[in-house]
Structures are given as C-alpha cells and as structure tokens.
C-alpha cells in the first residue's frame, strides 16, 4: 500500500485516496470548436508511460482535496506532489 504525501495533510495510506487518472488534461476552453477527433482525444486518450507519470489524486477520506502527484509507474515511487494550479515540477 502506497504512502502518499498529501500536500495538505502529509503522508497517508493509499486507502484514503481516490485516483483521478492523468493530470494536466484540461477541459477545453471551447469544446464546440473542436473536431470530433479532438474531442475524443480529450475524452479518451491518455498516456501510459513506464516511468514518471503526472496523475491526479484526491484525498477523499481526508481533506478531500485534489492534488497532483508524479509517480513512477514502474516502481510506484511518488517523485513529487503539488497542489492544483501549481506547475508540474521538473523531475530529473
């Protein structure tokens, strides 16, 4: 079970969190301006990297805040967490 460092509460068990998929997939400014394919890319297409992956998590059974985490999908290491609106940290 992961120990996830909530940027508001500190490290907590994975069981307290909800997973929200890939981060930085913003809702399009004007969806009607998109082609069906562009809209489908927003809806359905996500990265599936082996390695660092920015993800959304929600501390659902804690502060109920959404935040972002960069997790290495190969090792499950959480490399960084940051609050909504903060820039994605550079992972070296």
């Amino acid at each position, binding site marked *: *079970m*992961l*120990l996830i460092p909530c940027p508001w509460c500190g490290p907590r*068990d*994975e069981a307290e969190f*909800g997973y*929200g998929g890939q981060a930085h997939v*913003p*809702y*399009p400014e*004007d*969806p*009607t301006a*998109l082609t*069906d394919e562009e*809209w*489908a890319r*927003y*809806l359905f297409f996500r990265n599936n990297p082996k390695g660092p992956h920015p993800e*959304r998590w*929600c501390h*659902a059974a804690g502060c*109920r*805040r*959404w935040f972002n985490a960069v997790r290495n999908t190969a*090792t*499950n*290491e959480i490399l960084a967490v940051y609050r*909504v*609106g903060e820039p994605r940290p550079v992972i070296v």
Partner: protein
Amino acid sequence: MTPQPFRLPDGGRISRGAPLAFRFDGVAYQGYRGDTLASALLAAGVHQTSTSVRLGRPRGIFTAGVEEPNAIVQIEAPFPEPMLPATTVELYDGLVAGGLPGQGRLATEPDPARYDARYAHCDVLVVGAGPAGLAAAAAAARTGARVILADDQPEPGGSLLGTAEIPDWAAETGSELDAASEARVLRRTMVFGYYDDNYLLAAERRTNHLGSQAPSRLSRERIWHIRARQVVLATGAHERSVAFAGNDRPGVMLAAAARTYVNRYAVAPGRRAVVFTTGDSAYCAALDLAAAGVDVAAVVDARPEPGGAAERAARAGIEVLAGHAVTGTSGEPRVASVAVRALCAAELTGPAREFAADLLLVSGGWNPVAHLFSQAGGQLRYDAGLGAFVPDGCRQAVRVAGAARGVFDLPGCLADGAEAGRRAAEDAGFTAARPLPPTSAAGSAERSAPSAHLWVVPGPDGFGTHFVDLQRDVTVADLARATGAGLRSVEHLKRYTTAGTAHDQGKTSGVLTSGVIAQLLGVEVAELGTTTFRPPYTPVSFAALAGRNRGVLHDPVRVTALHDWHLAHGARFENVGQWHRPWYYPRDGEDMAAAVARECRAAREGVAFMDASTLGKIDVQGPDAGDFLDRLYTNMISTLRVGMIRYGVMCRADGMVFDDGTVIRLAEDRFLLTTTTGNAAAVLDWMEEWLQTEWPDLRAHCTSVTEQWATVALVGPRSREVLAGLAPQLAVDACSFPFMAWRETAVAGIPARVCRISFSGELAYEINVLPWYATALWEALYEAGRPLGITPYGTETMHVLRAEKGYPIVGQDTDGTVTPQDLGMGWVVSKKKRDFIGKRSHLRADTGRADRKQLVALLPQDDVLLPEGAQLVAGDRLADPPVPMLGHITSSYRSVALGRTFALALVRSGRERVGERLYVPVGEELIPVTVTGPVLYDPEGARRDG
C-alpha cells in the same frame, strides 16, 4: 496410548511434565508441550503422513518448518482447518488430525473464533528472531528507535533452536526487547506480505496452539498491518534437496530438519542414518544425531575434498565417503537401504554400495529466504560461490541480514545483524548511543571447504523418481519433457510442469528446479533466474484476513430516522447501496404482489406515504452556485426562482446520463439538490472534482446534508387533505402552492420544508424535517390520514408508480451508454447554454444516430411478467446464432392501474418501433410484446394537481 519409542531420554525444548494426547489418522498418540504435530508423530515412529497428490506415492515428514512440502494435514478437532503443514502445528491436548493426499476440507459449520486486526507503525521492523534478527532488533532498540521484532516461532532463537546448545543471550535479548518500552516482540507471528512503501502484513497466531483450551476472550488470529520506516529482513535460509532416484521416500529428510528434531524436540527421526551432503552444514546434523544415539552409517559427500568438518566426523567414528553420491533408495514404504556410488566429473563410477538405513538426510545447499525481499521489489542475484540466489538492490528502505543474504556462520550473522539494525535505526533518525555489545559466539578455527553445487545425481535408469517438487510430484523427467518441448523460461516451465505452484509455493523446490533446468538447457543458473515471489509467503486463512468484517460488520448498514417504525410495522427491507429501505409492508396473509397492489391502489386512489429520507441531498452555496450548477446540469438552473424547484439531469463528459434529481433554490446564493440514493457520494465527488480541478475560481461550496434531513413523500389524490389538516398556515390550493414549488411551514407543529414534487404522477408532497422530528411527523401523518386510509408504501410500489409514468431510474433503466435523448428527455437538455458537461458529446455523430437504443415501454401478450435483463429479438422464430439483439428489458412490473403487466426497455430505434411487435426469449419460449411510448399512465399529466 502408543508409546514414544523414538523420544530421546533427555534434552530438547519440550515439557515432559506436560503430556498431550492427540489422534492422527484415527490412532491415539501422546506428545509433549513444545512438540509440533510432526515431532510428536516422529517420536511415535510415524514418518509417512499421506500419499502424494498425483502419483499416490507414500510421503513423509521432510522438514521441520514452514517449507514443508509433504506432511500436509487436515485438522478435524477442535475446529476443522485444512492444509496445514504438520511441522508448523504446535501440539495441543485433544488435537485430532489426519494426513491429506491433496485438497483439504473447509468446516461446514460457522467458525466460532474471533479474528481481528492491529495497525502499527515503527521505526525499524525486524523480520525473524534468529541470531541476525535478534542482534538487529537489539542494536536498533538500544538507539531508542521504535522496534518491532516479528517471528513465527513461540520463542526467539531461529535456527539456534535446532542446535544442541542455545546461547543464553538469545532468551536474554528477547527479554531485553520485551522490557524495552519502545520495542515489541511479536511471537508466533508470520510476516507474509511486503508491499509498497514498507507496508507489511503479518499473521499472529494467538490461540491456535491452545486447542479447546483457548480462552474465548482472545481472538484466534490477528493480522498486523505494519508501516515501518526501515525494515531488516533476517529471514534465514531453507535447506534444499538433491534430485536422485527415490528421493521422495518416507525417511528421506533434510539434514538440518533432522538436527532440529534431535535437539529441539528430543526425537530421533530414525535408528540408522545415511547423510548425503554437498556442504559442511550436514556434518553438524550427523554429529548431533550420533551424539543422540542414532547410528550414522555414513556421510556421503559429493565433494572430493570435504575439509575440516569431515575430519571431525571421521574422528567421531563416522565413515565419510568423499566424492560420492546417493544413487537411489529402496524400502516400502519407508527407506530401508541407500545405494551409493562414486561421483567423478558428473559421472558415476566404481561399484555400488548399499547401506541399510531407515533415515536418509539430504543437504543440497541453502537458499536464502528472499521471498519478502523479492515481494518488496528487490532484485535477486545468483551467487555462484554459494550456489544460491541472494538479495541485490531494492528501492525500498530495507536491509537483509544474516543467512537471508548468504551469511551462514554464527559470528557473521550476529555481526551482520547488529550492523543492519544499527544502520536501520540511524537511517530512521536515531543515533547509536552505546557501542555494540561484543558478540559472544567465537569464530571457528576449522578449515571449511566450499560447497559443491550438485543438482542432479546421474540416473542410469532414467529420472522418473528424481523428484524436484514433492508436493506437485514433479520430477527431473517432467522438466526434461518440458525443455524438450521447447520451453526455456522458468516462468513457462513452472506453468507447464506446475513445479513450485503448490501450497508450499516451491520453498524447497524452486531453486532446485532452476538448477535442474539450467543443467538441462546447458545454461548458467544466473541466466535463468527464479520465478516470481508473491504474497503471501505462507497461506493465510480468509477468516484472519476478514477479521471483524464479517456478518453484520461486513459492510456498514445505513438506516433512516424512521427505521424503528418500519420494523414495528412489519416492513420487508431491501438493500439500496448501504441503506436498508422498506420494500413493502405486507399485511396478514399478503404476499409481495398483493401488498404492492394494495399500496399502489392507495397512492393512485387515496393517500399513501413513504420514507424518502435516503435521497442524496447536497447543499450548494456561494455567489457562483447558479453558474456552477448550469455547468453541471444539462438544463438551466440559474434562472430558477427562489421558492421553486426544477428537475435536472447530469451527464458525464462523454454525454451519458450520470444522475438525476431535483434542485431547490433556497436563496439567491443557495441551492439544495437531491441525487439518487445510491449515487449521493459519487455526485458530491463529481461536483468537488470539477470545482477544485477545473473551476477553482467559482465561488461555490458543496456540503452533503443527506442525513441532516428526513423526507416523507405524501402521495395521492387525497394527500392535500391530509397536509391541509396538519399545516393550517399553509395555503395548499394548486394556485397558491403550485407544482414544483416549495414552502416553509409548520406541519403538525414541526418546522418543515414542503416541496410539491411527484415521482408518481399523482398530487404529491415531499415533507422535509430535521431527522429527530421524523417519527413525530410520520406518526402525525399516519394519524391524520387514517380516516382516509393512508397507507405506508415501500420502494417496490415507488418503482411501479414511477415506471407507469415512464420515469427512468438512473442505474436501472440506464447504464453508462445512455444519453438524455435516448431516454426521450431531449427537453431537459438546454439548447441555450454555451456549454455544460456532456454537451459536446451530444454533438458527436454517434450520439445523434437514429438507431441508438431508446427507452420505450413494452406490453407483453397474455399478461406475462417479463424478467428484467431479458433480450429483445425480431421475429417469432430465433435466427441462427449469433441472434441479432435489439435491446433489453430494464424494468418489469405488474400494474394495478393498467390492469396488466408492462415493462420498460432500451430498444434499438425504439421510438420508431412504437406499435411494432417484438419478441422476448424466456426459456424455450418467445413472448410477443408490443412496443409503446414510455408513459403508460396519465400521459396528459392530468393528475398532478389532484
């Protein structure tokens, strides 16, 4: 009572003053406290415990620990438990067990024992209380770190428990740790799983060893959930066998196990032994057995130059055959003689010798127990010098100490353990305050020779009884067949041959299998690697994992403030999510159909009421609340006037219906919305997700108030009369209090918010009060409505009433593929709004297809009640498979108001098919149905105002 002919006259860690009676395979025996079932059987001279699963060969006790592949038993009393290794069952008085050739049996009666769970955090978790683990725990505890030491045995000592002389410091260190305020020693506790971020699970056996004497106040087993900053794995090593002909016969035993039986349990596992070894360690067994009076006929050492240990054995009068190997055994069922030949450059040479013996000890080397390390994500490396896989790197904060990383001498283990414990504590932020205590064990000056790495003894007569996996009956011949079939990966070979897949998960066979395969393929063992180690390390009972979460505690039960009334009035309940909701209220002699018919009639013809408190309720406040709800709902919410109510639908971004409910405008900046009962949490999550991640600039806040309001639906043409009598200040006429309006007033003197909402098509009110007034309100309504025949109704009647009106239930009449337009609810989708969640998806070509599945009603012929989930097909004869399916039935009821059965269904191009005849396959029959529009009752909506 059978005597104990193989019990040694003295020694051992058993209590001769505490004799215990037990039965095995129907025979009565006696053992002592401190015995395992295996040691007590050996004391009675019982080696064979069962036959093997595939070949039916006799099999006996092979080890003295958790790695046991053969002696798997079924406990019958005091409580049935299947598939336990006899080597791990602590003996107790009254134990009844039997050998298992294969599967065991679960108890048929409920388990009376309790199981529970503990959660713990520590700075350093040490797994294993052998020399390395004890040294590690002591070193870490002395820094002041919070230490947990877990070990599966009843007392600390590990491998030392199987030696002739246990140093006092083992018990002393255990006591020191027991006394330390920040240290905890968990005995009889098997750490079985190592997960991410140093989260480990352990099973503590609290009363298993007490049998029927177990105090009922104690839980039987406890699962420990341990989060550790640092972990030290001192899990020791397992001895392994060598593949030779007949190496599975009862009487063949691992050398260190025999040593343990002699020293720890004071049992001679035989009268006359041959020892077959590839290294030094088995000489300790040979000498300890000889000292205990066992006649050691010979030590057969595969090494041409065995070194100092062999010299010591020779001085003790034991014949040592260097450069020899055991080529076979004979005896039925137990070993009676052992055949030996010289082994030179992997070829058998010279004449064969036969030794009469009832015991053959085997030592093919030692495998570090790397299971937990591997589960943690650690890499293993093949050490050619040791002939074993040893831990390499791991990203988790873990160290391995002692035999678990290939350190096999006692002084080395002590130093290694102390170092690991000290460093772990330092990495957890503690300082080693005192110098390390000197280790008491002195190094040996004896000249030790490196071990030979012998996997298979050549078999002139084939390899059909050269066993590698005793529990799965896998032989070298089986492996050769698999490699001959072209398999190369150990993972494939494992699945093809089943080697390593049994209950013991290949603890004694895994590395041997890899070694044999490497030899068969002519590659290095290092290239092959091992199969994957997965939790649990040893089997864990489901009861222990479930803990207290059984029966009524399996899942939380939610009940409304009116639950006691429903119970007292004979309601039958159904589960809706975690809620227990009244389903229907049968009167004397009524079945469900009769009760529901009566309840429906009351709601359509007189007055009825139901407990609607489980509806999800979310309070949304803030200056931007209206704007926020406009983005969530498909229809316009911000234009709703204070005092009014609007029905709304929410879609996911893919345009599919997610939830529906009503929105009440309480104030300019405040709304109360309802959700479907089962979806309340999901809707709140959804709203918060969008607010936080996409629209943090919106000034709106959401609060769940589901349980802060009790809601009673008062329904039927005479509901107005009942309400008017109880709410004298409320103008109840349809003009003053129109449909989809709400009013604050006192009902039966209770402050209430009354909404004119109908989920039945009838004149209806939803009366909301604080939950502690719920019963007072309900009873007042019951009393006031009694002259009019007011009738309580449950969810089944609610479903019938709403279905007659064609109102869909999200999650029943919809799944994740249905748009509002599919439901015939295009009217609830705003054309004016610039955007809302799902809008863009409604513009996709696919969501605009005319042949999508659409909600319709079905009228079955001959009043058949159709099963929900049934498929719809065209034509009165089934086409050849695959039969084209046109849709499926989502709701199906018997309607009193319609005087017939009916159903709702999602049907391809359903609205175009109105009037068409379709067919529903039910069993062997095809039931004809007529498609109609979804609203069957009062399509004009004439009844809504009473």
